[in-house]
């Protein structure tokens, strides 16, 4: 909270130094919807990664026309524009690495339409994921993608990163649930990609846009598919002595021909952190727990749950708890949902990684993650979507220890390499953003990256539209910018 004197000073300062860029933005959106004072910008120089980059101005448009105006104004002034939702991104995708205008979508937060009969909803990008779920719940419907940050993350951000979540295993990622999207393109033109029903004619621009991390345009309206809430759900918690037997159990369940809607794993450091914060009933001496959920018709759920329990027992589960009520189910999930927050309470800093491996390679890759963390001397907790083979190692560290941040990033790179070598991917749901650009060359050839670059060019993407994201240095964000990026990043990055 600023004291009145500071606030007066800053507002005076703003008058004195207001640039033509800021003046143009204020004229388009109204003065109260533009930030440009250094102390105001500070709140927008980060997302959920460790990097920081300060924009020159922050704009809060309220309509697609205003978004178009922001995009045009930034272009006219020769500065980049970077879209941002709730700022919960984990790959630096919403960082204004070359400065410019941060286009924050939080004011566009209306649910425009819920059509229960046709099972769609039309929303603005600033709507929070959980708000949509809560709005449609009374109709017996739900919006399936449920990233762990769903209490705060925006649907526009979900579209940008093609977010996943625990239930992706059966329901798929965000792209499977977006039918159409209104987009403001890099030149300020407003267009609509897709339809209100699936399989629209023509090239699937919608499918290309979802997951493009805000580099092909700004989503201003989203048509999403809703699904019926199943008749029955059974949630189970299985306790194991270690991560490896729990990983083996994941494949054992699938081998029975049952695909649970969620299979989440928490290892010992995470269980301890969760229990340290609040007793959610996870056994503190467990090496790992698996949280599994099956759903469907009452008849099949009972059968599936029995098959799952059998598979878990045969894989060495030393205890299995089955939730019998909605309260018990919520209790089992609470530990999972509070896990990331709980790490914050036991470590000064942590670096959350996102990698994918084929499910059957989980045991060996998890062993590798533990060995690498030990070699680097960092504590590492794992809470992840085991059913999808989607790892989330959390490396705990203290950024005040000299050199720690750099070594953590180095370890992160080695873990990503481990995923790639196992036939996997460098990101399952968080995106490439700024953070993983340099790893793209580990999975894609120069020709592959060139093709991706051409898709970006077709959308009019250039260095003035969310630059330096997704594609590695030299592709839309030249070496020449390295120093410029460094200037905007207030922490030393190893990615540039």
């Amino acid at each position, binding site marked *: 909270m600023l004291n009145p004197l500071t606030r007066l000073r800053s507002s005076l300062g703003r008058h004195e130094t207001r640039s033509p860029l800021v003046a143009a933005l204020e004229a388009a959106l109204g003065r109260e919807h533009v930030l440009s004072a250094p102390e105001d910008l500070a709140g927008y120089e980060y997302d959920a990664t460790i990097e920081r980059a300060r924009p020159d101005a922050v704009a809060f448009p309220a309509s697609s026309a205003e978004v178009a105006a922001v995009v045009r104004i930034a272009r006219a002034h020769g500065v980049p524009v970077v879209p941002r939702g709730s700022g919960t991104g984990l790959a630096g995708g919403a960082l204004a690495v070359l400065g410019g205008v941060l286009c924050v979508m939080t004011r566009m937060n209306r649910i425009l339409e819920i059509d229960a009969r046709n099972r769609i909803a039309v929303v603005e990008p600033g709507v929070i994921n959980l708000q949509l779920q809560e709005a449609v719940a009374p109709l017996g419907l739900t919006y399936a993608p449920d990233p762990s940050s769903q209490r705060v993350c925006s649907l526009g951000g979900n579209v940008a990163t093609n977010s996943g979540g625990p239930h992706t295993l059966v329901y798929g990622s965000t792209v499977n649930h977006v039918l159409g999207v209104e987009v403001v393109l890099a030149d300020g033109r407003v267009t609509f990609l897709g339809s209100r*029903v699936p*399989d*629209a004619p023509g090239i699937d621009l919608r499918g290309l846009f*979802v997951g493009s991390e805000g580099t092909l345009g700004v989503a201003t309206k989203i048509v999403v598919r809703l699904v019926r809430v199943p008749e029955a759900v059974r949630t189970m918690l299985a306790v194991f002595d270690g991560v490896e037997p729990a990983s083996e159990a994941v494949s054992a369940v699938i081998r029975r021909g049952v695909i649970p809607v969620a299979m989440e794993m928490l290892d010992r450091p995470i269980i301890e952190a969760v229990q340290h914060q609040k007793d959610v009933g996870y056994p503190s001496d467990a090496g790992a727990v698996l949280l599994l959920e099956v759903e469907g018709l009452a008849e099949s759920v009972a059968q599936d749950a029995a098959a799952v329990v059998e598979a878990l027992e045969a894989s060495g589960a030393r205890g299995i708890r089955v939730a019998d009520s909605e309260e018990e189910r919520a209790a089992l999930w609470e530990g999972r949902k509070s896990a990331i927050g709980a790490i914050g309470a036991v470590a000064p800093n942590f670096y959350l990684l996102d990698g994918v491996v084929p499910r*059957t390679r989980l045991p060996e890759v998890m062993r590798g993650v533990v060995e690498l963390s030990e070699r680097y001397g960092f504590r590492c907790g794992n809470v992840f979507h085991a059913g999808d083979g989607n790892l989330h190692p959390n490396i705990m560290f203290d950024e005040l220890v000299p050199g720690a941040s750099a070594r953590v990033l180095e370890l992160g790179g080695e873990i990503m390499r481990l995923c790639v070598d196992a036939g996997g*991917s460098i990101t*399952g749901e968080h995106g*490439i953003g700024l953070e993983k650009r340099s790893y793209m060359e580990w999975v894609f050839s120069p020709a592959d990256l060139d093709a991706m670059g051409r898709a970006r060019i077709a959308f009019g993407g250039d260095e003035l539209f969310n630059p330096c994201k997704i594609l590695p240095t030299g592709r839309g964000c030249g070496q020449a910018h390295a120093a410029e990026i460094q200037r905007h990043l207030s922490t030393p990055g190893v990615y540039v």
Partner: protein
Amino acid sequence: MSSLTSTTGLEAVRAAVPLERERPVEDYRIDTVAPAVALRPADRAEVASVLAAANEAGLAVVPQGARTALRLGAPLERYDVALDMRGLDRIVAYEPEDLTMTVEAGLTLEALRAHLAERGQELPVDTPPGDEVTVGGLLATARPGAWRGHLPGQRDLVLGVTVAQPGGTLTTSGGRVVKNVSGYDLHRMHTGALGTLGAIVEASFKLAPRPPAVRSVAIRCTQTAQAEAIAFDLWDRTLATRAISLLAPAAAEAAGLSSMPHVLVEFGGSEAAVSRSLRDLHDVAALGHALAADEVDASAWARLRRLAAGDQAHDDASAGDVVLRLGVPPSEVARVIDAASALDAAGLAAWAHLAAGAVLVRADALEVARVLELRAIAVEAGGFLQIEAAPAALRTAVDAFGAGDLVLSSALREQFDPRGTLNPGRWGTAS
């Protein structure tokens, strides 16, 4: 093809693969036009070589698999080289425990299904006209079947592709793991692009366990509105549903049922889930005063699938039926079926897959004005109309797609196929 350069170019294309890969051009007619050369490469390198040579020579290439969607889209502007992809029919990797598979583009769904069935798994797609469709065609056309809306479509199941680009470069996007957001999803861009941005040579998919029990029921009704009410009641229950289709009398007859409005339903899952679903279905049918609800075999679905792709005749420009696919909100499906059924056209059949809002209309022939009338209805309902199959004349007179951002689509074409080597003219006004 008279100039010396074209002849030389053609020779270069021919030389890109061993002589024995050449096929009789007569077998590759599209809208009566036979290509100058037809080649059936054996691997991706040969596909790339052919494309590179053709691109260099300014020759038009049409990649094709089972040849079941060549009356989809505007007539080609040029057609020099038929690229038969069926020589690329290997299973590259199959990981049953990961529920993933990587295959070459020329593999048929039939072969793929047989291979997966051994391990009790499937690729859950029922694209028209049937399992002769190749994997490349499955993706390039992205034709939805009756399962769409209940099961994921091919756009959702594709994990990655490798394509040969017009210049002869091979590029890959995505990967082989079931969850992946690294880079731009060019595999989704190629899905439904009708082979205009690259020739798909390999694809990876997410698989599913094959349901132990699958049963179909035909519910006979007296009118469309009644069938609609029953269909919605079924959809609103969370049963083990794989398909709910609404059939006007002529479509029902074509499917082998009686000439009355029908709701055709497929359930799939465990025995317990399917039995329970069948019990509920009989309650719903009774509540809706249906005339009958009888179990039927899968042949009704197979007939509808075949009907949805149209005739595949290419020897007479005016011959062949018309098939339209409309996308409308499910609540509009019955109204569109009625509107289509009211058209005065021989051999007219209309049916719809409720959850995906896909209405199919087929007729022996259809006037331009009738197609535009139906398109207006679809557009007004917030949807679209695509011509799935029609004589070349109709596809010239009417934009076969009628939707999409043409500026962006053209820009993509410009970036990925600047010389117009792949399927030139396929997008018609949209190119």
